[in-house]
């Protein structure tokens, strides 16, 4: 068993690019779900907005990649309005249905053959991220070089995306932290508790929910951009339902309605995930037998890992429902 490899990979999972783009998406989702109580099950759709905003610049518009940032955010604002206008006056469940459906519609449209000229179909879009890579090279984080020491060893390519990614996480987290400390955040938290009370005090609940949905979505869009830049490609199936639910899981793990929770949750999620994956792979290098019975083969590691993750989450929900950073006292007043 190669413990040094397991540890190295686990630490890289803990702070790696997966944790970064999950964290950004979770911060956005936290604005909607954690602070406002909006059930957005379509965060992957917002992420796709960002990824395709970047991808389409080179592929369809033929302009600089940097235009993709405002274009992607524009897409997400539009998507927020489309989702929110019909549903935000209704009960929370309707938003959940519409968001999950919208995200799927986006995925199916961008991967369709019919719109291949715009979105590249199921092949996705490649080769748009050179301007981003070039900056990394220019400031001295050369793509092909190796940096760091055990257990933190990265290629220049990985390191540059990580640096940018964590800077984005920090900026976005601070932005949301400031907002949630402000009277604006207070209105959102009050809406989460009781819409009618807020309405009776003269606040337009619809308008605040819309702002929350769009803001959270725009932050989710940035997550999609980071992911697309890291891969250097945009693939429609990277923005499917399960991404939304893993992000939601990571958020709950960290603790909802806490900015710190939405950063640490994804880190723990990917840390544990990578550790278990690596550990099980080492264990199952040779099939594990109990007598004549084969318990595990290396091809079954993936499935078992997901099962164990599920079990961990169940245990967490039973013994620490507020998540790692949540406030137990707040949870206590759930049933009035």
């Amino acid at each position: 068993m190669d413990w040094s490899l397991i540890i190295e990979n686990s630490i890289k999972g803990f702070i790696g690019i997966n944790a970064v783009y999950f964290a950004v998406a979770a911060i956005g989702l936290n604005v909607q779900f954690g602070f406002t109580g909006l059930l957005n099950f379509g965060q992957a759709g917002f992420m796709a907005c960002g990824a395709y905003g970047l991808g389409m610049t080179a592929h369809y518009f033929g302009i600089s990649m940097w235009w993709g940032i405002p274009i992607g955010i524009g897409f997400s604002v539009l998507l927020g309005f489309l989702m929110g206008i019909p549903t935000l006056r209704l009960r929370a469940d309707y938003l959940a249905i519409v968001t999950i459906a919208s995200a799927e519609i986006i995925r199916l449209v961008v991967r369709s053959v019919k719109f291949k000229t715009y979105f590249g179909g199921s092949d996705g879009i490649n080769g748009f991220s050179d301007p981003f890579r070039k900056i990394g090279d220019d400031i001295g984080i050369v793509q092909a070089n190796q940096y760091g020491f055990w257990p933190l060893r990265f290629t220049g390519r990985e390191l540059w995306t990580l640096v940018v990614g964590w800077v984005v996480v920090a900026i976005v987290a601070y932005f949301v932290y400031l907002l949630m400390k402000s009277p604006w955040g207070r209105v959102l938290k009050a809406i989460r508790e009781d819409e009618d009370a807020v309405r009776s005090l003269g606040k337009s609940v619809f308008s605040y929910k819309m702002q929350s949905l769009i803001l959270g979505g725009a932050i989710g869009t940035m997550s999609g951009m980071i992911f697309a830049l890291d891969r250097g490609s945009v693939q429609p199936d990277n923005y499917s339902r399960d991404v939304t639910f893993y992000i939601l899981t990571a958020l709950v793990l960290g603790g909802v309605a806490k900015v710190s929770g939405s950063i640490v949750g994804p880190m723990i999620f990917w840390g544990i995930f990578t550790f278990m994956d690596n550990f099980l792979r080492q264990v199952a290098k040779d099939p594990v037998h109990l007598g004549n019975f084969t318990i595990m083969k290396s091809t079954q590691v993936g499935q078992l890992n997901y099962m164990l993750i599920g079990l961990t989450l169940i245990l967490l929900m039973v013994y620490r429902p507020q998540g790692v950073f949540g406030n137990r006292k707040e949870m206590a007043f759930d049933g009035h």
Partner: protein
Amino acid sequence: MDIKASLSTATSAARLALAGVERTPGVIKQDAILTASGVRREFGGIVAVDVEHVEIQRGSITALIGPNGAGKTTLFNLLTGFDTPNTGSWSFNGRSMEKVASHKTAALGMVRTFQLTKSLTKLSVIENMRLGATDQKGEKWWNGLFGRVWKAQEASITERAEELLNRFTLGHMRDEYAGALSGGQRKLLEMARALMTNPTLVMLDEPMAGVNPALKQSLNEHIRGLRDQGMTVLFVEHDMDMVHDVSDWVIVMAEGRIIAEGTPEDISKNPAVIDAYLGTRQGQSLLEDE
């Protein structure tokens, strides 16, 4: 002593204004702050509210009473925009309110509380209070980012909130979660929070429900105090002692209609009211019943 004196002045002023008013349902008042005509709300086949005409006298405490299912709360919901009537028109301070969204009524000076208290349990008591203040700069997200834009206003809001909390004997609970308050304290908090909007008309839906007798007395004082400060109070209540104690005028609803109006003394002797409450004519005052 001054308070007592001014209280009685306010009482007599309100009583005086209503003294010459005829004791008939839907009667015209001298100076109405709220007027509603032909307001009708049906749920399926059931007519919940069918009010021909009603007016609320400015500067008075008006009680809205009636047996369960009389449509009192529904009328509240309609007047505050929380529900839409099938037909009808109503105006507040001379301004037609039919097309006004529920959240805008508070800005116009009309605030309500709820039968089931809506304390925001996961916010602290002081945050509940601050939420009530209208026109907050920091409630716009682009301002929220910059503390210096809203901090000064927040400080003055906090000061006003603390004053109100002390008045409602909740000062010591300032930093507790609202969820930690008792039922009666939540009623007080909700009323205090509503006052943060600086209303001219306060509509209280069963302010006494679940409040212990000791607290009831001070709640009565608070309600009189509101009128003393020039506000108009309209409240729904089942507690007949309270109705008799604080109200200047009583409106009685039954089966969606207004069946009687008058001073508390008139109402407790009104046979139609006794009928509505008890089904048969008992020939006895409701108050003597207790």
